[in-house]
């Protein structure tokens, strides 16, 4: 049996006392590339934010390799939704990627040559080195998403959480991103992705969690990605043709 990378126990999260996640139990094994799917308002982003301590749950607990998130921050990288930041912020692509190194630096210490080198390498990996000095508002949506991915790569984490990394990106970028995610999995990392496009689930991922306020199902894509779970999650009679 594989090690459990992320364990969620009885997690309940509420906004203004209205629960958006009810009693979630979830075990994510090490080394999977997992999609979290569910309709709008299912609490997919909320689940990630609660695991990362950005939102405070009203009940339940989360552990990363057996310890609390606060103790394991260094093992975790996070890619927020692209729309959650102001891209007019006065900064460059390189500078945004450098932000990924801030966590290992801790308070007060400033990034130096070592961090810059790591950031440049990450930029190269996502094919954005040529744009390092570009102001971030001058980048296309796909390029912005690549910058966010580079920022996560630079953290050199064991577990990656990504909130809709394919939103608003062109087809080339989508393929580039999924290839990098598959490489991460090959290197033994665990990657958890909030995902919208059900058609691509079998092609991109090997693990899936169905979520709609409550957890519907979680497990290997080949075992549980079926019409039954889709219907339970999306409420309507859902049919997806699974390409082999």
């Amino acid at each position, binding site marked *: 049996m594989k090690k459990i990378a992320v364990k969620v126990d009885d997690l309940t999260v509420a906004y203004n006392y209205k629960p958006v996640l009810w009693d979630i139990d979830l075990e994510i094994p090490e080394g999977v590339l997992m999609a979290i799917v569910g309709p709008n308002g299912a609490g997919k982003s909320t689940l990630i934010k609660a695991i990362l301590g950005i939102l405070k749950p009203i009940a339940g607990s989360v552990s990363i390799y057996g310890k609390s998130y606060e103790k394991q921050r260094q093992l975790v990288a996070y890619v927020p939704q692209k729309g959650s930041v102001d891209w007019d*912020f006065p900064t460059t692509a390189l500078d945004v990627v450098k932000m990924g190194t801030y966590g290992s630096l801790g308070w007060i210490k400033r990034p130096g040559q070592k961090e810059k080198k790591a950031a440049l390498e990450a930029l190269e990996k996502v094919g954005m080195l040529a744009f390092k000095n570009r102001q971030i508002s001058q980048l296309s949506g796909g390029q912005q998403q690549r910058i966010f991915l580079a920022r996560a790569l630079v953290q050199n984490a064991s577990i990656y959480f990504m909130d809709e990394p394919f939103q608003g990106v062109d087809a080339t970028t989508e393929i580039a991103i999924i290839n990098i995610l598959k490489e991460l999995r090959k290197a033994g990392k665990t990657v958890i992705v909030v995902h919208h496009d059900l058609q691509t689930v079998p092609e991109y991922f090997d693990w899936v969690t169905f979520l709609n306020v409550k957890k519907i199902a979680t497990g290997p894509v080949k075992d549980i990605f079926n019409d039954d779970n889709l219907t339970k999650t999306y409420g309507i009679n859902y049919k997806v043709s699974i390409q082999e």
Partner: protein
Amino acid sequence: MSSAQIEIQLIASLVAVACAIPGTFLVLRKMAMISDAISHSILPGIVIGFFITHDLNSPLLILLAALTGIITVVLVEYIQKTGLVKEDTAIGLVFPALFSIGVIMIAKNANDVHLDVDAVLLGELAFAPFDRLLIRGTDVGPKSLWVVGTILMITITLLITFFKELKISTFDKGLAASLGFSPAILHYGLMSVSSVTTVGAFDAVGAILVVALMIAPAAAAYLLTTDLKKMLALAIGFGIFSAIFGYWVAHWLDASISGSITTVLGLVFLSVYLFAPTKGVIAVMYRERQQRTEVSLLTFLLHLKNHDDLKERHVNHLNEHINWQKVRSKTVLDLAQKNNMIHIENNIVSLTKKGDEFTSKAIDYIITNEDTQIEDMKDDFFLFRG
């Protein structure tokens, strides 16, 4: 220049710098209005502090008043969190309430308190040099110079120490939180600095100018740079310029110093707003016009590419066919010729090799939206810069 004049300009400049630093972050966090709220609602804090200390420059008064500033922020957030009103409404509810409490307190005690509403709103920079700080009987300069200087030193130290943290929590709150840089601590830290700065500057320049000094230089700097450090430097520069130039405007016009500084700040922003090289109104208008011409150029080139027929490529026919007015046709023809994309022989227009390649590449880009291939075209054509 008399020493009093120098002192006034020095105080005004230090106040400007102390305001520009937190102001830059307030502007980037889209919280400009919170500085307005703080500057007004610290009034009751100042009045109570003044009752206790009888000294507008006492550190106790500054702390008390700054505390009222923090209370304002907390109240605004609390009201907003209930979800019943939006943030701007919450601000509009909280600060007049606190400010009016201050106004009533001043009016009730007008006889024994040397503090009036005019001075609170507009400041009395001209009188600042009269209130001296004496250390063992030696005059070491105006009290407000020391107060503002101390606040500025604290602000600069905090800025340098926590620059990275401020940047990340301003740009991406979620990432900051996940990396362990508590956005709440940084938020209240910034609010505390803003409040203390506001109180320190209040006596010198008044409630209204404090807001202008925080927001206008940062807003102008924002339009000129794409680098946070440069934005801070520019905001500081604009602040100092407005403080000193504003003082001399007041001197020449024999008018209020704080009023003149605010006016200069407004003019500085206005000129940047109009003339900033890339984000200014005129630059944007120029770019849009240029873009329109380039779209026309592309349409024209595409037409040439699609039609081999000589009749279709006759200069006169183009006028009628693409349905442009003469002036526009001429602009487009000139642009195409200047770029060696067409040549005209016996009034028949044809694409050159360069024009042909350009057209294919541009169409390819418009269809696929893959912008790595057109990087070199971005320098020459606005159309491809997005």
